[in-house]
């Protein structure tokens, strides 16, 4: 670890000792879950590198961007329109929310029965462990659940908070509300960055974001081949890294990786034998470094072939229409794309059920494992509907509810193995 990183972390006011501990645990965890895999593609080296430098080189880049006058925008949700952020010459990064850190601290400002994701981002801040959060000039929240909505009120005491209102339905007046929110965000960005979002800049940003989505869509198509050419946890990692890596560089690396995948598919090479049970994950997002469930599934002799999740297809399925030429037309296209997100915060949310069944069929999944974070009301409620919809299609589903702790590993393993036996 270079001394310059330590200096940088010190300047960011991290708790150096606790941060060293976190990196050590993360490194070991990554070694056990990722580096132990056999037959990984060479293109994964880039992702190994990016992850190993997650709090190092990437933070250094953010600091350099800041020094050159750019603003850093932190987010927790796929609803924040990155196109606008980039068009304002700012950098957008997803913030740490996938590990058990600073939980005791977090429980001082949010109730105990709050989901692990919320507790995690608060814990990372209060325990001074996340250099991304510390680098932010603006943290953008959104009203996708009551837990987050209320947590952002408290979080505003610690970070430069800005909250977008996400409507709960998809009628005309909801679309109007969303457009007003997108415009309000645009103004806020312009005010904070001092840059004007022009048609040219927005067009370029839409292209960058769509290119990244296209690269991930291609990855998602290729991964579903028979035999499966890449592990589910590797694809999850790629999706996770897409939230904080430089978008253009990331898209290039994923395209190279996809070329390697095509080679492998041509040779009929699999990361697992062809008859390995194929499971699709569905439900709550898995923020980095939350690899618990994919690791359990793939250690139980199955393979993950898709993630119906915000860190998965919910974030990559829909593109922004690239045909409008005026600023107004582009903003409408951005609004429209984001209102296609089938988040469980909407009522009704029939689209998600259709998307899940369609995706499971396309992937030729042997079963779906629904993952709900403990205390997550929206996804917890939808479990029942998802199971019913899948049952109607004859697709088995296992519902799991868990958090970031490791104490229920054995129980989860038993359930996942029994599900594999059942679907095999």
């Amino acid at each position, binding site marked *: 670890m270079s001394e310059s990183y330590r200096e940088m972390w010190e300047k960011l006011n991290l708790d150096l000792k606790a941060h060293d501990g976190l990196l050590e645990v993360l490194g070991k965890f990554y070694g056990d879950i990722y580096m132990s895999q056999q037959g990984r593609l060479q293109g994964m080296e880039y992702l190994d590198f990016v992850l190993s430098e997650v709090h190092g080189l990437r933070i250094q880049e953010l600091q350099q961007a800041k020094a050159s006058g750019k603003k850093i925008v932190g987010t927790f949700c796929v609803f924040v329109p990155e196109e606008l952020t980039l068009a304002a010459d700012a950098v957008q990064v997803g913030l740490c929310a996938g590990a058990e850190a600073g939980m005791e601290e977090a429980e001082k400002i949010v109730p105990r029965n709050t989901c692990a994701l919320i507790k995690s981002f608060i814990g990372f801040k209060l325990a001074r462990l996340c250099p991304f959060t510390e680098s932010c000039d603006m943290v953008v929240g959104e009203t996708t659940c009551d837990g987050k909505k209320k947590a952002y009120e408290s979080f505003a005491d610690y970070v430069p908070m800005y909250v977008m209102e996400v409507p709960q339905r998809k009628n005309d007046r909801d679309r109007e509300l969303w457009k007003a929110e997108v415009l309000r965000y645009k103004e806020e960005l312009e005010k904070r960055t001092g840059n004007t979002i022009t048609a040219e800049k927005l067009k370029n940003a839409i292209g960058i974001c769509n290119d990244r989505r296209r690269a991930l869509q291609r990855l998602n198509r290729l991964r579903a081949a028979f035999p499966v050419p890449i592990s589910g946890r590797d694809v999850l990692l790629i999706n996770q890294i897409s939230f904080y890596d430089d978008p253009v560089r990331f898209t290039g690396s994923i395209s190279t990786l996809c070329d390697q995948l095509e080679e492998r598919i041509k040779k009929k090479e699999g990361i697992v034998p062809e008859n390995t049970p194929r499971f699709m994950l569905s439900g709550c997002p898995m923020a980095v470094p939350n690899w618990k469930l994919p690791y359990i599934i793939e250690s139980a002799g199955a393979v993950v072939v898709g993630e119906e999740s915000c860190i998965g297809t919910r974030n990559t399925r829909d593109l922004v229409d690239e045909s409008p030429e005026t600023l107004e037309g582009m903003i409408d296209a951005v609004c429209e794309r984001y209102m296609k997100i089938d988040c469980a915060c909407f009522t009704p949310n029939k689209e998600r059920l259709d998307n899940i069944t369609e995706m499971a069929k396309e992937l030729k999944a042997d079963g779906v494992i629904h993952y709900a974070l403990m205390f997550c009301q929206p996804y917890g409620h939808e479990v029942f509907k998802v199971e019913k919809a899948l049952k109607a299609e004859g697709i088995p589903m296992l519902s799991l*509810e868990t958090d970031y702790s490791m*104490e*229920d590993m*054995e*129980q989860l393993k*038993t*359930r996942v*193995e*029994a599900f594999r*036996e*059942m679907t095999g």
Partner: protein
Amino acid sequence: MIAGIDIGSRSAEIVLLEKQKIVHQDRLPTTFEPLSQVRRLLGNVQPLKIVGTGYGRNLLTEADIAFPVETITEIKAYAIGAAFVYPRACTVLDIGGQDTKAIALMPGGKVAKFEMNDRCAAGTGKFLEHLAAVFQIPVPEFGSYALEGDRELSINSMCTVFAETEAVSLMAGGQNPRNIALGLHASVVKRTVNMLRRVGLKFPLVFAGGVARNPCIIHLLEKALGAPLLIPEEPDMLGALGAASFGESSAAERDK
């Protein structure tokens, strides 16, 4: 001869099966040295292979054991074991030391759907064991003690620790301890019935696991469900039996 070994959280069982006939069965507490308990269970027998199941099944594959070892989950093992004893069984309930499982069966003992309790031990054997200790009553007698109650006091807490607190406050309020015990048993049954409904309970229902030895749970379950339960003579052997039966059929499959 195939050995089925079920290493549960509280007890370990062995069943030896020869051409679908049980030739030997035995049970020991799991303790903190489950592998030496397994060696004691095996004694001098020389099975063709061992099929391990239960919480500790992976210990068998990692251990230095002279026979080939395979493993299946306890869910599959209980399903096969139940179908072995009761070929027409549609649902299995297993309340063991720290897990409660409800399993819906397809014909032939294949698992159609299953539910398990969460990470906490509420509503399991451990819950009853803990509370029996609070009552200072030996575990095997706790069920019949509760059956002597004449009024089912309501215990609302799902958590073992809080249920104890509730029981203690009821005692402090001068309630008949037998009625409190009855209430505690009823709270287990209430949770269990919900779990059975979630898998789509159909009769006949097989009740297995160590808690199927508790007469009060049996009585309250039959009352709540309005139907008699099928209870094997050795309810905690069903997992080991299912494992052994799986081993015989997979060996037969290979010899074909």
